[in-house]
């Protein structure tokens, strides 16, 4: 039984993720106003070429993508664009990179690149642990 559980856990860790869809060119028009990005959540697949056009709706704002270290800065009436290849999978924070007002630190968004396999695997492993707990406890009682 322990062996079976251990092999399932190994499988969860080692089985590669299904092949990603063919890379696309993705274009997002993101509005930036005090103190939010609209839309605040962007989704892409790994390998996609992402272009974000930043439009400010009030004062000067910036957009910085955590993990990719790219940024753009838009003044009202002057949109700015940034292009990068989503080479890393995961969830990344978007931040305003210009001190734009009192709530500037809370002007956040997110970029989701691909399904979150790390989280899915972690959840599966946690589920396995929960299953395994009663089994090992019963064994210990015997």
């Amino acid at each position, binding site marked *: 039984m322990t062996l079976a559980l251990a092999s399932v856990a190994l499988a969860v860790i080692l089985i590669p993720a299904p092949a990603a869809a063919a890379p696309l060119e993705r274009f997002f028009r993101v509005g930036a106003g005090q103190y939010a990005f609209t839309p605040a959540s962007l989704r892409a697949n790994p390998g996609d070429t992402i272009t974000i056009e930043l439009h400010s*709706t009030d*004062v*000067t704002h910036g957009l910085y993508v955590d993990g990719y270290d790219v940024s753009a800065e838009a*003044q*009202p*009436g*002057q949109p700015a664009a940034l292009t990068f290849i989503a080479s890393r999978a995961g969830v990344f924070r978007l931040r305003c990179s210009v*001190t734009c007002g009192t709530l500037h630190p809370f002007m956040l968004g997110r970029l989701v690149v691909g399904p979150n396999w790390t989280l899915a695997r972690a959840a599966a492993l946690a589920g396995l642990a929960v299953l395994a707990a009663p089994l090992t406890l019963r064994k210990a009682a015997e």
Partner: protein
Amino acid sequence: MRAETLARLLVLGLAAAAVGFPLAARQRPPLLHARLAEQGGWAPDVLRAEAGQPLTVRLTSDDVLHGFGVGRTDFEAVLVEPGKVTEVTLTFDQPGIYTYYCTVWCGLNHWRMRGVIEVRGSDVQAGAPTPPLYAQLGIDIDAPHPAETTPAERPNALAAPVVALEFSFDQYAAASPAQLWSSLGNQPGLENLTDAQRWDLVAALWARQTSPAALAEGETIFRQDCAACHGPQGAGDGLYADDLASAGQAAMQGLAGAPDMLMQSPPDWQDPAILLGASPALLQGKLLRGGMGTGMPMWGAIYTDEQLWHVVAYLYTLQMDYP
């Protein structure tokens, strides 16, 4: 006895420090605080300097990101960041009053963030300054100026008939395209031109007064400083246009105490009757002076005359095609 000497030395030392520290602090370059216009703008908003002597200023922001630029000089604007101190050194060759201003859109009243540098010097220029062109020509820049006739199609300078015609800068500045179009009809030798050809000729004459480089600079300035209210295509639909009509009025009352002052939305330059009815001197005057009560900033303190003429030349390309 020894204790008394020590006590005397201590008192003397403290007294010297009390006088010396403030004196030493005054020797440091002044610290200029940038604040949102609603919070009072620049503090201090007047700096003094001597012509030919370097003026060092330390800059910091008390709230958001600002910029520091000095109008009508070659000084390259710097960013003023909260929590940081930026030091700049300015040298003015000519005495006069220079305007420093914020170069980053920091809030609705961004353009109200201005201060002046009074530069004193020995070589005071003689005589009164020349009045701006619109004043010399007696143009009322606040009066409506609709064009009586508008072209059926967009005038194109490249399609214009080739005619030998004297056309000076003064003629260009004084008349609107529509006025020139009417007067060209009475010109001997041009009677045979169709209406469309005459409009093309107007565009060609306008093109003579500018160059591609000048138009490019005019467009850059327009994108940077005008598009936020006037709209990217000059249709008067910029981001701030709505705010001007609503929040802007309240802001004006707070600042000037004039309750009757009405904020106006920017004009729609996609309407040929509005743009082609305006003479270059009128447009340059509006840029130079700004609109009293309209929310239009005064650009005369920021841009040189040459830069303002470049913007004017660019504006007409919204209605006419010329290289």
